[in-house]
């Protein structure tokens, strides 16, 4: 980023000129951010403090303070339940996706025939995963592990467990393939990180007598600390933004419902956003702690 060797306009220094040209390139994004993200976000927050009724001419607001929030948290029987379910399911899915995509990436990092074919298979879901498609597949029972989820033994076993344990397990069994289907981009990111690791470290370790097992735990995993973090964050966001997400669907339904309305849906959106940030912070803290320990 060197300064321009000559300044054509007098009065403006090269640094200022460079900055102005830079702003020219990003200006449209800044305006877009204000128009399509910041203002709507503030407006949604404003709606969340109001009772909003849509009429033919416009919208009518009546200020209700935090009533929509207290209603979502303390009166609405489904919302909090869905929110907790979402948090648990996300926390169950993230480690599975991380481990699964790392294993697949380690496999694909080896040299063997038909590698391209397998890579194509494991990336395929990224291309076809959309809300309605997943909904159809789930409805037809195509996303559960064949033969396990529906067996009577499993059902009896689940009935014995307390609900806070049986719900995640049931989710795991019925949506296992679905969870794996969210690993496509993650596999690619792991793969490219694996390929960036210097091969000579492994050779040196092998000469020192380290087994492949040892070099995985002591070399590969520590160098993937940042990647783990990126992938965990990406996964949480991908799961939370998915249009078949129960909370998203519920909020969307409430937007047009008679007893719900825009104000109420906005309040729930912000509560949902808070939980999402909470999950991100939690996972970030855990993985960052892990990464620091690896380095130390």
């Amino acid at each position, binding site marked *: *980023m060197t300064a*321009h060797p000559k300044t054509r306009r007098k009065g403006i220094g090269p*640094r200022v000129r*460079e*900055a102005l040209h*830079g702003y020219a*390139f*990003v200006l*449209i*994004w*800044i305006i*877009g*951010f204000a*128009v399509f*993200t910041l203002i*709507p*976000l503030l407006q*949604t927050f404003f*709606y969340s403090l109001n009772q909003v009724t849509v009429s033919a001419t416009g919208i009518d607001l009546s200020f209700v303070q935090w009533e929509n929030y207290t209603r979502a948290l303390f009166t609405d029987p489904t919302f909090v339940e869905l929110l907790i379910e979402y948090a648990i399911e996300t926390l169950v899915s993230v480690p599975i996706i991380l481990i699964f995509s790392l294993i697949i990436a380690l496999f694909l990092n*080896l040299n*063997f025939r038909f590698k*391209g074919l*397998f*890579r*194509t*298979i494991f*990336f*395929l879901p*990224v*291309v*076809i995963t*959309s*809300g*309605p*498609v997943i*909904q*159809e*597949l789930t409805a*037809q029972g*195509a996303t559960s592990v*064949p033969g396990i989820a529906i067996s009577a033994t499993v059902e009896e076993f689940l009935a014995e467990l307390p609900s806070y344990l049986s719900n995640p397990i049931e989710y795991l069994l019925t949506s296992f*393939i679905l969870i*794996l289907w969210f690993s496509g981009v993650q596999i*690619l*990111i792991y793969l*490219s990180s694996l390929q960036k690791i210097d091969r000579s470290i492994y050779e040196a370790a*092998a000469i020192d007598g380290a087994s492949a097992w040892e070099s995985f735990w002591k070399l590969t995993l520590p160098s993937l600390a940042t*990647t783990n973090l*990126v992938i965990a964050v*990406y996964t949480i966001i991908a799961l939370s*933004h998915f*249009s078949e997400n129960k909370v*998203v669907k519920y*909020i*969307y339904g409430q937007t047009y419902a008679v007893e719900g309305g825009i104000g109420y849906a906005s309040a729930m*959106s*912000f509560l*949902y*956003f808070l939980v*999402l940030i909470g999950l991100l912070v939690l996972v970030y803290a855990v993985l960052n702690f892990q990464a620091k320990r690896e380095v130390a």
Partner: protein
Amino acid sequence: MVRGITRETIKSFLLGNRTSHGLLFMVVVYLLLIAIGFVYLYPLLFMFVTSMKSPEDLLNPMVQWIPTEFYVGNYLKAFRVLDYPNTLRASILISVLPSVIQTVVCSFVGYGLARYRFWGKNLIFALILATFIIPAQNTVIPQMLTYRDFGLLGNISALLLPAIMGQGYKSAIFILIFYQTFLSLPKVLEEAARLDGASDLKIFIQIALPAAIPSYIISIIFSTVWYWNETFLTVIFLEGGIQSLPMQLSKFVQAYENLYPPGVVNIFDRLNEAVKLSGTFLNILPLLVMYFVLQKWFVESVERTGITGE
């Protein structure tokens, strides 16, 4: 020659040595990959097989994986229910057009961030990340109301306007892709052009842009796929105006019963899972075709663009 085969060579042939993996190891790898691959593809296989089953086959518990006859009746029905030619055209329109625009704009922004020093860049990066994290439902209602005021609901502009302003669907990823791309391109040519008196815009179009063609292709492909599959925004912004394939699929039951009223048609023409899954398959078919034609770009994208997020 025979005496050359000692226990050591057999052992290394099976278990591998420092330079190559053994046969046993590779067999295990293949078996695992095939098993996982099968589980992975199970929903698709299930969908395809079920969609080829005739009503008799569906009721016959003996028919699991291989239908007794080649039956395309489900597809003919699903084709009609989905209003395929129209919804397909709409889907292509609402996915390709915003992606091309979004890619061009994001490349602009990424170039500005990568090539110029200016105050507030870190803030902009933080905001870009924020746009990635903020859920759509936190911003979509005011947008929808504004569009309604301008009469843009159901119009493709509702998707194009955010894309033009760099706020398209998942735009943060594309800005980062271009940021990485332009950061890694050598600056020598640009500086030479600048010495020759070329303007900044000219430098971008004539020197930076051609060097970043792979990133453009990848961005357009990914953006197209994501716009195609996106239903949350399209339902809110386009409902009543443009009907895309996934939108039509999500109300398949309703559309089916309009065409084949349940009380009127005979039992074999009632809606069954085979017809539904034919519809689902028709829905992803264009994406599958695109994927297998362009798969090199998909799977090599992360390596090519160097985006790993650091």
